[in-house]
């Protein structure tokens, strides 16, 4: 179906996200099998994660602790929780029920702040177990054409936290900001590695549309199989357009679960509400309630590191910019680098540029101290911006002292008196051009300035700072 472009300006998209994150424990949620699922299929299993008859779940303390960390970081109320069985048959689920939390989740009612300061509601963040992994064989790995399937239960029973956000997001950008912020929080507090590509962070997306100015929510569809921030944005855009078009053509939206197809760039219907499972939730009789003591919660709360939101604000204040401008740096966990450089009096703009543009792929061997002294060298004119970039790349690659790295590249800055002598010599050797520079109009001046800078750079093997050369030329022309 080729979509027309309806007038998006009349419509508002309403988005709520459900994020599943794998918790960074050593062992599984309900048994002592390893929480690790590379490696040989089914090698990290035991009677519990295979759902063998007679096996019983016992809750991992660390999973509870990490869930509480998540709850506190998301400003939730941590409460008495009860596990429930969610019953449905699917071959990746060994017991034919998933142990999850239903009526009483461990965390309820919190919020997360986007970099622009808007607060997005968190309805709940509960614990549950992951399923096994199915590989479809034949038919190019597609489920409908496969000739058979293989099941690996290494992932079965891995602890998950499901974070259910309120429908407070209004655009693909909002959704991406929300997931980035959430991921950043999860990584910061050590709850999860947050890797979306590897499936340790999974996003389901509820989308509905409504006419701008109306209060009532439209019928929503849930989109599954979103594997990156890019596809999150694309899927929302596609889905919103699809829904608007249906409504504008006079039809009604059917509540559905839909599947995002990245290659085709569209969503497909998986099932509608009428076909939805009857999960027959009931309290899990093999587990008892979790009632964390005030003391335990306080202890966990006291052990939380500074959160991205705080760090964003702190850095913004230190630099003197808006928090929106520092969010990327915090997300990349580079704020210690920024603070170190700023407090050493490096130029703020140069610091921001390097952190945002030149360290996108990580800091490697670079230390905050080395970064600070490098940016200070740049600020003081000891290095040109191009030279700074070169040195920075090498520090990331191999570490070391910026002074020495600069030296090894021959980036020793010249002192200005030495430079002035060279400028004087070049002027006397090219007196006609010099006169043309002094007396010429704007165009002529520019041309001649380029000519002189070129000669001087050649003479200094590129080590002179272009800006300073220009300054010297200007000063001399006015004498």
């Amino acid at each position: 179906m080729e979509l027309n472009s309806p007038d998006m300006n009349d419509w508002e998209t309403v988005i709520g996200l459900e994020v599943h994150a794998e918790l960074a424990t050593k062992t599984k949620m309900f048994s002592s099998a390893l929480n690790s699922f590379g490696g040989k299929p089914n090698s990290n299993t035991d009677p519990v994660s295979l759902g063998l008859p007679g096996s019983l779940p016992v809750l991992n303390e660390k999973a509870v602790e990490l869930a509480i960390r998540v709850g506190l970081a998301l400003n939730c109320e941590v409460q008495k929780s009860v596990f429930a069985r969610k019953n449905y048959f699917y071959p990746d689920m060994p017991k034919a029920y998933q142990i999850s939390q239903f009526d009483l989740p461990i965390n309820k009612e919190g919020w997360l702040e986007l970099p622009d300061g808007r607060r997005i509601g968190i309805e709940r963040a509960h614990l549950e177990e992951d399923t096994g992994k199915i590989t479809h064989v034949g038919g190019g790995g597609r489920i409908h054409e496969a000739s058979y399937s293989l099941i690996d239960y290494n992932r079965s029973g891995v602890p998950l936290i499901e974070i259910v956000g309120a429908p407070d997001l209004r655009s693909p950008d909002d959704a991406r900001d929300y997931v980035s912020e959430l991921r950043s929080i999860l990584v910061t507090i050590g709850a999860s590695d947050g890797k979306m590509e590897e499936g340790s962070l999974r996003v389901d997306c509820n989308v509905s549309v409504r006419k701008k100015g109306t209060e009532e929510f439209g019928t929503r569809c849930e989109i599954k199989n979103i594997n990156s921030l890019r596809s999150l944005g694309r899927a929302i855009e596609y889905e919103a357009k699809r829904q608007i078009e249906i409504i504008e053509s006079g039809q009604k939206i059917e509540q559905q679960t839909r599947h995002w197809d990245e290659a085709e760039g569209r969503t497909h219907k998986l099932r509608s509400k009428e076909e939805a499972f009857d999960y027959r939730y009931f309290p899990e009789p093999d587990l008892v309630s979790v009632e964390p003591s005030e003391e335990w919660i306080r202890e966990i709360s006291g052990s939380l590191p500074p959160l991205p939101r705080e760090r964003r604000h702190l850095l913004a204040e230190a630099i003197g910019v808006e928090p929106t401008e520092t969010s990327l740096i915090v997300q990349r966990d580079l704020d210690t680098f920024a603070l170190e450089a700023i407090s050493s009096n490096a130029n703020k703009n140069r610091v921001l540029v390097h952190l945002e543009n030149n360290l996108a792929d990580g800091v490697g061997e670079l230390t905050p101290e080395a970064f600070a002294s490098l940016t200070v060298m740049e600020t003081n004119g000891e290095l040109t911006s191009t030279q700074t970039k070169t040195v920075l790349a090498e520090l990331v690659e191999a570490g070391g002292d910026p002074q020495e790295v600069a030296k090894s590249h021959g980036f020793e800055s010249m002192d200005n008196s030495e430079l002035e002598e060279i400028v004087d010599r070049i002027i006397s050797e090219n007196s006609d051009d010099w006169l043309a520079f002094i007396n010429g109009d704007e165009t002529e001046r520019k041309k001649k300035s380029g000519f002189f800078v070129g000669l001087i750079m050649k003479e200094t093997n590129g080590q002179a700072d272009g800006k300073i050369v220009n300054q010297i030329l200007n000063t001399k022309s006015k004498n």
Partner: protein
Amino acid sequence: MEATEIAEKVSSGEISARTVVEQHIEIINEIESDVNAFNLVTAEKALIDADEIDSKIASGETLGPLAGVPISIKDNLCTRGIETTCSSKILEGWKPPYDATVIEKLKEAGAVIIGKTNLDEFAMGSSTENSAFGPTRNPHNLECVPGGSSGGSAAAVAAGFSPLALGSDTGGSIRQPAALCGVVGVKPTYGRVSRYGLVAFASSLDQVGPFANTVSDAALTLEVISGHDPRDSTSIPEKPLDISGFLDQGVEGMRIGVIEELSGKGLGGISQDVISRVEDAIKVLSNAGADVEPASVPASIYGLSAYYVIAPAEASSNLARYDGIRFGPRTEAATTAETMTATRTKGFGDEVKRRIMLGTYALSAGYYDAYYGKSQRVRTLIMNDFAKAYEKFDLLISPTAPTTAFPLGDKTADPMQMYLQDVCTIPSNLAGHPAMSVPFGFGADGMPVGIQILAPAMAEREMFQAAKILESESGNGIE
């Protein structure tokens, strides 16, 4: 020979474990074909285990309290490498890769497993007729049922195949067959004995317990299998029971209540000869110095109704894992979903299907509150009424089963008639309290009658003291 006597003689070298096992195998060879107590007799393995015990004794090692004692195990307890079928076709041939905790404990105590006993499929029934491998017969009269669901274990002890057996009790499945077969059967406090490795029927009701010919043998066995197990979240964090040293302390000064609602005055269907045996028991206990009076547990009459919602509900979920993917036989079909359905349809017997459907219905959308929710509240009501009764009484008594053993086929056509067999035993499961059946003479038909002794949670010791008094005056002393 009693288990206590065997263990003593084996430990002192007076008799070899091999001889003991051989003697029991001989009895099995003689009459097992009539009784069909076993799904599997593990004679060869038992002899190897016996020899091992004998060589340990020869080398001066001290052995556990059950050294050389043959024991029969209900076939819903996992035994590593030994077929565990739950008397169901759906598990035919399944060899668990692990031992149940109670099996580990028995082995440690020196007991020798002699076979896996027959049961109603997945412990659902009260006659052991719902077995995929044919019914067990009552050793006292082969035309009659042994009761159920642990009918094989009760019959094995009554027939002299082994002095001890383990069963499981979800609504009376140890006590009712114990009564019908004239042996001692104990359901401990919920959480006293680990459920790890017990194939679940209804998780919040299931308890493992012993069968024996004498009260002291039952006490010893319970001591061996009790105690905290970190692999079962519902296991009570207490040391193993110590009962044996207190068995002869009598009931002097104890206040014992006779539950009116379960002794013919509330519910119909309790036969006159059973009621008169209860009256005899009252005299015996009074003569021994107890203060015996009528007691009321009004909500106990709702036990059966609540039970037949709660147990099937939990069972419907517990039995969902039998899908032909990871273990057990598979009925292959074109797709995985069809394979699951075909495997389950072929693998489960009618009673199991009935309860799965009943439980699925009770949990399904729209019916949860009316059935499951309400039954769980009634459960609280029953607990409250017991608590009130125990303000006045130390122990309670009632008949164990409403009738003596009935002929095979008598109740198979009408499930509801069969369910009524458990009317006296179910309340203790719902409350999680300990209860046991002690053989106390015979009915008009010459078949055994059992008296049920009920105690508050954790009060097994007092319960056994009363049982010992009844045993001494039961008139069917141990030959």
